[in-house]
């Protein structure tokens, strides 16, 4: 009983909070509950025969985590990694994945009232936008992590 109460409290403190990061001047946000850690860029071991945006795997304290370049994923041009480049490690659907982003911004609280559904465009990018969050100065594109992790169709097309 006690544990459950604590759990609920925990969830409340993490609700509505999003970690925001930059990908080519656009601000994206992901649900903080899915983020396990943020690390600087590390040597990446390439894996053959994967889509170009999957850069390979890294050794994170003994754990092997795949990493994905978000610029390439969203069909933007590739930027050389600098010491500002970060890897945001997310975990969902029993899988771990590292997202390589230009820079990490801050943790924002966006209340449910400020969130509106995404526009109905069919471009590749839009499939992964779960919703749009209105923040003071602009908008944050909220990512659908589960789709990011499990979406296969595009990858299959690439393989053909």
């Amino acid at each position, binding site marked *: 009983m006690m544990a459950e109460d604590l759990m609920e409290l925990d969830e409340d403190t993490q609700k509505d909070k999003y970690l925001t990061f930059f990908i080519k001047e656009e601000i994206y946000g992901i649900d903080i509950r899915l983020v396990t850690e943020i690390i600087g860029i590390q*040597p990446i071991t390439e*894996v053959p025969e*994967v889509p170009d945006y999957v850069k390979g*795997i890294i050794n994170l304290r*003994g754990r092997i985590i*795949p990493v994905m370049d978000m610029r390439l994923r969203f069909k933007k041009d590739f930027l050389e990694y600098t010491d500002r480049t970060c890897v945001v490690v997310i975990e969902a659907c029993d899988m771990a994945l590292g997202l390589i982003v230009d820079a990490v911004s801050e943790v924002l609280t966006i209340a449910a009232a400020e969130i509106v559904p995404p526009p109905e465009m069919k471009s590749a990018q839009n499939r992964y936008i779960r919703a749009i969050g209105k923040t003071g100065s602009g908008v944050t594109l909220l990512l659908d992590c589960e789709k990011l992790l*499990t979406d296969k169709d595009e*990858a299959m097309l690439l393989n053909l």
Partner: protein
Amino acid sequence: MDPMMEMFVFETNQNLEQLEQIMIQSEKNGVFSVDDINNVFRIMHTIKGSAAMMVVNEVAALAHAIEDIFFYLRENKPQSINCSALVDLILEASDFIKKEIDKLDAGEKADGLAAELMDMTKTALADLKVANEGGTAGGDNAAPPPCAVETQPETGSPIKTIIEKIELEDAANAFRALVFYQDDCEMENIRAYTLITHLKSHVAELYFFPDQILEDDKSSETIRQQGFDLCFTTSKSYDEIFALLNQTIFLKELKLTQLEDVSQWAHYPKDKAAKAAAKESSAAEASVKAVKKSEGKENANHQSMISVNVHKLDLLMDLVGELVIAEAMVTQNPDLAGLELKNFNKSARQLKKISGELQDGVMAIRMVPLTGTFQKMNRIVRDMSQKLNKSVELHLVGEETEVDKNVIEHISDPLMHLIRNSIDHGIELPEAREKTGKSATGNITLEAKNAGSEVVINILDDGRGLDRSRILKKARENQLIHKNEAELTDKEIYSFILAPGFSTNEQVTEFSGRGVGMDVVTKNIHAVGGNIIVNSEPGKGCITTLKIPLTLAIISGMTIKIGKAHYTVPIVSIRESFRPLAKDLILDPDGNEMIMVRGQCHPIVRLHRLYDIKTDVVELTEGIMVMVKTEKMILGLFADALIGQQQIVVKPIPSFIKNISKTQGITGCTLLGDGNISLILDAAGIAGRI
């Protein structure tokens, strides 16, 4: 899951397995030994108690009902038991309980109703009572004359119902027997004593001469000269007594005379009685044998075993894996390169030795003998052969062979499917078998043995074998043939049966025909990194071979370098590695590169091309050729250089990557001593791509 529930599920499953084994053994022997009855009673009692505690009431009630039957068997020791029917009932009850337990294990409610089974149990108990006591069916009040297994009723009220074995009725016959033993057999007095003991269970009054057989040594001499003289009254007929006495060992001559004239019992044909007598004594012998055997097994089980949660073992294995990596990181640290460190090296070697032993020890912990899995097959053979009216015997060889616990879980289903297939498709009906000169009883042999780094499991049957032409035809229909038909070897044709949805059955039966079974087998075996090979001889039988690698997690690997990337090849697949000479390199008519090794030609795989890796070493003579062996061929992998051999901990490829790319030839990754990641190559996977 609630730990109490986990314990309940685990213990009850164990008990049910034991119960099944006892039941099948008892059925084979045709009789319930005292030990069996006690064990079953104890098992049912335990299940009843724990089920009641976990509030699984239907199971508790059913266990109670069965307990009642075995209580009756234990206290009253009835003679007339329909063994087969009772075993069927108990096994059905056991299945019901197992289903309920499985539901609880999956987190669902155990909502099955045992009402029907309980009715059957009550009827069975009532029948037992009627058969053995006479009087009203189900009457608990009727005081039964104590029918012990050994003695006989004195003045019995005539008991009319006869089920299978002989009823002991009034001792109305009187006989005189004169027994002569063979010359020089010695110890006639002891043999006479044995005879008396043997006869006691069948007679009411018994007189014999000489009477001081054990106490007086001279009685041997008397028996030798005058024969052993017995007088007794019994319910048995002349022939039965004759048959019984005739079984005496070292018997030279038997004179049996009936002293009174007794009317024959109409409903007792002499032959059946004599046969029944023989059956009873052999059943008694068999049960003694079975009891001895089970005692032996029980002793083995009680040899200080401890149940450990598999999760703990996994944690331990992971830690040992990390230790191996850390040890490599210390001893192969780049800081130490080039330094003269004699003492350090000595200590480092010691460390390596100890961590190696620790690794072996921990892996051995996870090894479990195949005995349990093999024994489960007994039940399947029994059930299927009954349902299909075939006679099949299961032989188990090498069941002590041990495999990793992981593997056991993945083997059980495939074995079950393969055995079902053997019985359903392979073994012919008894008449058909006899026509072709085979024994009416089919034989299935389940064999397990260690072969190098693999465990080999063979399932052989002596049935009709696989029908090559039918399989070929079906493969053609399903468009599975990609090579020239004439070039297909027998093994390749037989391997078509492993394709999903493949079946040469015209109709779907209860047991097979959908083409799903072999697919399940293949998937399960591949899941543990194993292989299946099917071979057959028409008319003679079929043999399915499963090859499963022994250890899954820590293997010896050779690390190779290609450009900046590191790859590792498992040592077991490497035959040799060398720098190729220009003269051994050939180009075949299609433009494929081949290498000659000791007169044989093998294909070359340029790894840098296969996986698109940037490297400067593209000339074959400037790199290293690693010859690897697969099931079907030997191929040469071309890499830049060899780094070294080491123990590596196999880590699975992250599921994200597995989902996104179906690359063949890479089966995992590992961390090297310097922190780099190396991908593990799989020779068979690479071979599949060329």
